[in-house]
């Protein structure tokens, strides 16, 4: 968490994350260049710029695939949350690699001729008469613009000023970008490939990203408690909530609530969406007496849904009651940052 803005927010975990990421990127590209150089030398040598273009493009494609897998993987297993924590750096790095690829492609394939290079990207090598003949590089160019937009707004400054819902909606454009990139590969490199590897790469990427999202969505719908249409929503037995963790309740009115049990006997309910990036607080925990968002560690006090000073984030809170061994959450949310009684299980059961 931060009370101010820095150009790039780094801490030890992020530095390690970035170091491993860039070692992998450099290893990938160096390996690609060396293997190609060993396979084709002398008169058979491939153009170094084309080889670099291929290395960068496949690297960016794999990075984007990994990027899109992190969200559902973290929802399925909390051990993958550290990959999500610094996902923005992975996203910006993916854009940089894709940009380098695009720069080489425009320089090598579209420059030095009688056609403006940018115009050539959209008009050369095909036509718009049929879908199958659309220049494949146009798909890549549009995807690159989207990736730029996402990279440029990945900073918390934009997150705060656009607001989490709009920021998140904007960053969902990564999916159209990915589809455009798949089309870019299908119409370009895949048409020239007879090694059988690129189809495996593309199909594997689509299957992995699509599969993980479907499984995570299925698991989520199964995990959510779904409310009935009364004023109080039955969240089930309190014993089903692990200590210092939460369950997520679908309130049936487009709202989701994170119901926490902490210090063994205390219960509290808050809005599920973190104010930072709408991360799922219900997948978070209570640590040192604070609700902690699983994505970037934003904290909220259970008693009033406010971030501890000097931070100013606030989330909606909900009234909770216990009847028998069942917990009930009031359907109507209290205004953000509203303090309300914390229910003690022992008080209720023995009172």
């Amino acid at each position, binding site marked *: 968490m931060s009370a101010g803005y820095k150009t790039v927010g780094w801490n030890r975990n992020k530095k390690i994350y970035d170091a491993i990421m860039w070692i992998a990127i450099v290893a990938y590209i160096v390996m690609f260049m060396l293997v190609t150089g060993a396979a084709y030398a002398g008169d058979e040598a491939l153009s170094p710029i084309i080889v670099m273009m291929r290395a960068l493009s496949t690297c960016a494609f794999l990075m984007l695939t990994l990027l899109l897998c992190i969200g559902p993987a973290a929802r399925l297993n909390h051990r993958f949350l550290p990959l999500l924590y610094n996902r923005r750096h992975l996203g910006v790095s993916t854009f940089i690699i894709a940009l380098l690829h695009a720069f080489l492609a425009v320089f090598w394939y579209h420059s030095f001729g009688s056609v403006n290079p940018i115009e050539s990207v959209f008009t050369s*090598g095909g036509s718009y008469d049929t879908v199958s003949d659309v220049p494949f590089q146009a798909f890549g160019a549009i995807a690159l613009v989207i990736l730029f937009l996402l990279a440029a707004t990945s900073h918390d400054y934009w997150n705060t000023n656009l607001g989490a819902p709009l920021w998140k909606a904007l960053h969902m454009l990564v999916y159209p970008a990915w589809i455009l990139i798949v089309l870019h590969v299908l119409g370009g490199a895949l048409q020239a490939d007879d090694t059988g*590897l690129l189809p495996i790469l593309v199909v594997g990427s689509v299957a992995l990203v699509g599969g993980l999202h479907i499984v995570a969505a299925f698991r989520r719908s199964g995990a959510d408690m779904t409310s009935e249409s009364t004023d109080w929503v039955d969240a089930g037995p309190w014993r089903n909530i692990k200590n210092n963790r939460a369950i997520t309740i679908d309130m049936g009115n487009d709202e989701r609530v994170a119901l926490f049990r902490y210090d063994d006997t205390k219960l509290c309910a808050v809005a599920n969406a973190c104010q930072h990036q709408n991360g799922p607080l219900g997948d978070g925990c209570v640590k040192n007496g604070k609700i902690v968002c699983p994505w970037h560690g934003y904290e909220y006090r259970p008693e009033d849904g406010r971030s501890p000073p000097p931070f100013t984030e606030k989330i909606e809170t909900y009234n909770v009651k216990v009847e028998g061994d069942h917990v009930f959450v009031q359907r109507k949310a209290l205004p953000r940052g509203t303090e309300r009684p914390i229910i003690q299980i022992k008080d209720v059961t023995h009172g």
Partner: protein
Amino acid sequence: MADQRDSFFVGYLKMPTALKRFYVLVSLIILALAALTSFAIANAQKSAGTGVWQTAAPVTVSGLLSVSPYPVLHVETEAGIESHLMVMTGKFGADAFASAHHNTQVSVTGFAIQRGGWNMLEIASETDITPAEQSSSTQEGSALSTVAARTLGPATLTGEIIDSKCFLGVMKPGAGPVHRACAEVCLLGGIPPMLVVEDSSTGDKFGYIVMQPDGSSASQLLAKRAATQATLSGELIQQGDLLYLQLDDTQLAANSQ
């Protein structure tokens, strides 16, 4: 069950020990996958042939320059006539600079582009073409007065329409769908188009420079069909060591549509 707090990751706090071990493994897997995937994809790339673009030092070649349909320098050697297609730097043909020297003996200085038996010279300016008597003593070849064009008969050929400059060695690979836009821009700039026919049994490639029925350049005509498979019909002609396909009129109509 162990308390979840022990393994819950908070980015700005020290990573729990149990997660650390997991992420040492994850990091090693990511690095190994990066290296292995890179190796597999790089190793699966196809050969782009033996074309070379010798940019280390320019060469000077002397011979008879003809410009129709494309600038070609014909050089007499012991093995026979060696024909060098001429192009400009970038994606442009050399017509503008060569036309003033049609059917004259010249020396041309430029970067050599070679693939198999094909030869090409890339020049940068009109000063790279000089009358033969003014050029240096390092010239090759001797005086040719004319190079006859020999008609070999009608032919129908199927292959890929490419721009000869990239295909002969400037870009490797300089053919195929990924190279399509570049090939189109090259042809729009006047680079001679070539129909490359591959013998599927041997993999050998045969190149036919394509011209219009009236013997003029077909670069612009074929630009939109660059890097696509095409069946072209016309008259096969040999001049020097180059083979040309002079399109017939029906072919021209089909390409104009």
